[in-house]
């Protein structure tokens, strides 16, 4: 059952086509029922935007149930057309036409998993990546902490104190003229909505690939090691050769311009002093 369905739609929240901004991309979401518009507006509240849309996402509900096959995420890209799938939803579109068709099955009207994949795909097209990572802004620059589930991303976000947390689960990295920028996203992890309270960004200070430990230690990673550690954490299916090649190029560029570390850490606030002393 869709969240938001059956609830009244306050006029201020039920605009015809809500716009959601992630990492500079503004998605105008059309085709939603009033209750789903409210749900989208509430779920992505800090990221609701009034800026001109970059991409129109046309949502069509297909309350169809298919059985008999194991679903797996999919991303393909041919001649400017792309297809993304995250069961039970699909997105297809043409980037030149700046229009995406979103077919959703039972569940949220704007399937967050698929929406996240769409953001990852657009970022990859722009030379960036959507990374399974948390990020904390320290003195105006973002430390990004990546690793598989259980490696400590949310733990570190919860150690942030008064520092700005961009997210505890999903961070967008976009290349700029001089350096990369880390962007907040609405795709939070076990820390919940508190970890995605503001649509903020900061220049990237460095990347840390996490290991939990009893004491702090670190090792600087080579660019190749950085790509190898980041590749599995990029939120995009990698079974399409062109998508994988694009991603490999984006990660190589990131790794060559960004200091990256293997970081063993203990869940203590002295983490921030330790990071200050990294080279």
């Amino acid at each position, binding site marked *: 059952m869709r969240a938001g369905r059956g609830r009244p739609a306050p006029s201020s929240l039920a605009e015809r086509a809500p716009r959601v901004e992630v990492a500079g991309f503004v998605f105008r979401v059309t085709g939603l029922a009033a209750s789903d518009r409210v749900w989208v507006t509430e779920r992505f509240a800090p990221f609701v935007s009034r800026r001109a849309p970059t991409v129109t996402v046309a949502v069509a509900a297909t309350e169809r149930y298919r059985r008999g096959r194991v679903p797996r995420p999919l991303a393909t890209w041919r001649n400017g057309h792309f297809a993304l799938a995250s069961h039970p939803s699909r997105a297809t579109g043409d980037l030149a036409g700046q229009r995406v068709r979103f077919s959703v099955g039972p569940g949220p009207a704007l399937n967050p998993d698929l929406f996240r994949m769409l953001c990852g795909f657009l970022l990859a097209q722009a030379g960036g990546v959507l990374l399974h990572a948390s990020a904390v802004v320290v003195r105006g620059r973002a430390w990004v902490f990546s690793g598989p589930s259980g490696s400590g991303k949310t733990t570190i976000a919860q150690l942030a104190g008064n520092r700005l947390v961009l997210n505890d689960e999903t961070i967008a990295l976009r290349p700029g003229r001089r350096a990369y920028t880390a962007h907040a996203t609405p795709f939070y992890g076990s820390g919940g909505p508190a970890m995605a309270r503001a649509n903020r960004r900061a220049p990237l200070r460095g990347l840390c690939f996490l290991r939990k430990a009893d004491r702090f230690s670190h090792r600087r990673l*080579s*660019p*190749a*090691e950085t*790509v*190898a550690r980041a*590749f*599995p954490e990029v939120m995009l*299916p*990698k*079974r*399409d*050769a062109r998508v*994988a*090649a694009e991603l*490999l*190029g984006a990660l*190589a560029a990131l*790794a*060559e311009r960004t200091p990256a570390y293997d970081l063993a850490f203990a869940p203590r606030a002295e983490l921030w002093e330790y990071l200050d002393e990294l080279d």
Partner: protein
Amino acid sequence: MNWTEMDWAEAFPLRRSVPWRTLDTEALVVDVKSGLLYPLNSVGARIWELCDGARSVDDIVGVVAGEFAAPEATIRADTVEFIERLADAKLVSIERRRKGESR
């Protein structure tokens, strides 16, 4: 014929068409069927580059032995094992033909 019986002068490994790139002296190879990335160290990267279908395993061993400081027997054993692993992962195919025969 299995791996141990193969004549390495007549075995020509060829990289499959998968995304890959070198960074410094290392290489990163993506297996798009599994969605996995294989990081290769400098020796592995060099062997990967040499798997062009024109060089036999013996040729590759000769090139690697000329570029890296190690006993040739060690390089041969390691190179054969490495190419076997690439073949097991379906990242290279091995063509058998006599030296000088066209592909």
